[in-house]
């Protein structure tokens, strides 16, 4: 039983990441009708926002320490951080330590900007082109983005730790009456889950309770009629692309302490996120979120040693198996709408 609880918890944070990426994918598909294969790269760029801000905050100048030597025997040049020069040692250290949470604020304008640039600069030229063209161009864009990141940051993962206050694990089992150290769950993953829930709720609230959101929803349902009413729906959809990019970006920022950012992480998530979107139902926002959590938890269960012992390799195919079963029984996915991608 304790293992089942552990895997549900594990599935929640993985599912959170899937849900956030799939939510952005669905927003873009639902509004602009574009199948955006560069969305995983946006998640990766978000992660690297954490790396970049961390490096900016750790900017330093060199001071020669005559008492110590470097690996060549020359006097050692020690890094002195500007933030510690400016704000004092303790405050400077705290600012550097909190780089990841601060990167959320940093990433939102950056990612909205990246989203606008992508949409206005490239993707808008492909609105009237077949989905295959859109997939090819966005996939190509994803490869370009990841190669740019690799050029500047290298191929190895870059450790981007959470603040000290969130390191370590919560003894979750104790709350449920288990012995200490039976069910451990890292604090940061817990933070990630609640953060994702907040973002998802925020996006839904924005679409549900604001006039802007209402127009966007109307546009998703019938773009032509909304246009005939004199509303510039294209401008709103461009904003939605920026919003989707920002959602992917903050999802990436917060994921940086869980999996060390590397240039390829977007691709790792992209394929699974598309499966999530298809299982949830193309164009359905609640479907994307529900499928994200469902598949995240199923993937965790399939990775349990006891399951893998009985069905070797199941951990690598479970998501696709579930996708096949759901698409056979419910061809439009869990919450898919009639008419989406069926023309």
């Amino acid at each position, binding site marked *: 039983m*304790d*293992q089942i609880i*552990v*895997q549900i*918890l*594990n599935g929640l*944070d*993985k599912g959170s990441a899937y849900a956030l990426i799939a939510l952005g994918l669905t927003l873009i598909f639902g509004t602009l009708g574009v199948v955006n294969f560069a969305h995983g790269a946006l998640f990766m760029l978000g992660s690297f926002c954490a790396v970049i801000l961390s490096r900016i905050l750790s900017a330093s100048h060199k001071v020669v320490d005559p008492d*110590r030597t*470097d*690996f*060549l025997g020359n006097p*050692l040049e020690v890094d002195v951080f500007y933030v510690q020069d400016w704000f004092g040692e303790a405050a400077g250290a705290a600012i550097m330590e909190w780089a990841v949470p601060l990167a959320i604020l940093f990433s939102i304008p950056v990612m909205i900007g990246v989203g606008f640039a992508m949409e206005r600069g490239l993707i808008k030229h492909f609105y009237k082109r077949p989905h295959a063209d859109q997939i090819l161009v966005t996939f190509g864009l994803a490869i370009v983005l990841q190669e740019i990141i*690799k050029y500047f940051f*290298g*191929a*190895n*993962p*870059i*450790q981007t*730790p959470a603040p000290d206050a969130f*390191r*370590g*694990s919560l003894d979750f089992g104790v709350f449920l009456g288990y012995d200490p*150290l*039976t069910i*451990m*769950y*890292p604090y*940061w*993953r817990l933070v990630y889950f609640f953060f994702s829930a907040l973002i998802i709720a925020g996006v839904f609230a924005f679409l549900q309770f604001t006039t802007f959101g209402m127009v966007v929803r109307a546009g998703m349902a019938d773009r032509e009629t909304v246009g005939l009413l004199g509303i510039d729906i294209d401008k709103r959809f461009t904003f939605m692309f920026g919003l989707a990019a920002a959602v992917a970006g903050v999802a990436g920022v917060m994921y940086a302490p*869980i*999996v*060390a950012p*590397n240039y*390829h*992480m977007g691709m*790792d998530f992209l394929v699974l996120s598309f499966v999530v979107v298809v299982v949830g139902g193309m164009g359905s926002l609640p479907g994307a979120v529900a499928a994200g959590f469902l598949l995240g938890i199923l*993937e*965790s269960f399939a*990775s*349990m*040693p006891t399951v*893998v012992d009985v069905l070797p390799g199941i*951990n*690598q195919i479970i998501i696709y198996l579930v996708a096949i079963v759901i698409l056979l029984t419910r061809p439009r996915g869990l919450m898919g709408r009639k008419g989406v991608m069926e023309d």
Partner: protein
Amino acid sequence: MSKSNFTRRGVIQTGAIAGAGLALPTYLRAENHTGFTNAPGDSEVTLGFNVPQTGPYADEGADELRAYELAVEHLNGGGDGGMLGTFSSQVLDGTGILGREVKYVTGDTQTKSDAARASARSMIEKDGAIMITGGSSSGVAVAVQALCQEAGVIFMAGLTHSNDTTGKDRKANGFRHFFNSYMSGAALAPVLAAQYGEDRKAYHLTADYNWGYTTEEAIRASTEAMGWETVNSVKTPLTQTDFSSYIAPVLNSGADILVLNHYGGNMVNSLTNAVQFGLREAQANGKNFEIVVPLFSRLMARGAGENIKGIFGSTNWHWSLQDEGSQAFVRSFGTKYGFPPSQAAHTCYVQTLLYADAVTRAGSFAPCAVAEALEGFEFDGLGNGKTLYRAEDHQCFKDVLVVRGKENPESEFDLLEVVEVTPVDQVIYEPDHPQMGGADASLGECNNGA
């Protein structure tokens, strides 16, 4: 009125025959006469450096390439000569190889066997490379080694740690300086037993490919011989980035040691996850829970950050070694590039020098003559102390370093500390050892190609 006997057809026929006749000696000299593939001319010789320039091991590939360029510079008489001055065999004099200036071409393995074979083939067939070296993955090394065997060129392996490279997949044209999984196990086990005790229960997470299997097998065999028990071993997909599902069950498995048979990004992420799940602070079976990483690399250690502190592993070489050879290499490399070399850079540099030395001692570029010069060759001064290139399997035998993540690093390069230099006698094995393919493993016949 005179009539010419020349016809258009006649001129073409005569020209073709004359051309073929003139070209024949060149053809014979290049191939049949010398009797081996890509015999070099009188002024230049081309080496092929096949490293991952893209893909997950691109950083290691870049460091390997730096080392190769440095080796070429030293062989051609440039720079400060690096290890040429400390190498026990003093036949290299900075005039290239057998008087020919050393040139090189590079290929990108992409850490994929098929891409690595294609780039190696291109360097051999199009660029005339006489020797192929490099790689940062055992799968790639085994594949390229087999290709070089067929093509009739020497393969000097770069960073490859799987037993199979000089075990069941050994080849007469292939040579490895880097250590292997068996040696890691043999060196690590006594240190681990001394540090953590002999009554320990280990849980293995193993990368699901060739290197992972041989490393798990080696570590299990060595630690079980010391009294440890293996409670479980789980294979993890090579593409896995979040290992939480694999790490979470470890605490309740009855194990008190986690062995991460992971390398590269896998190692960085699995170790990070293990630390996040509180394994470093946990207690199990009344003991402190411990983590072991059999193969450490400084480049990877940098990625793991603080998480590697206090964790034991093994490595082929480390820049902090104080012997003359290591210091000469670190000085050359550090002066040229501004940071110390990695173990991947070291093994690639050394392999290039060893090849050049063997050619010089053999007085020939013919692969079988070079192989003969390398077989049973004993040398010193290249950073690992006295070393033997064993004739039976083309594996180098030398001391192995047991290292630990440093608690208080003084610089961004100062991540590992050497805790023990395990003597070669403790890590040597019989050529027909079961982990090395048993009695069936054979080098086969040397191939000169052409």
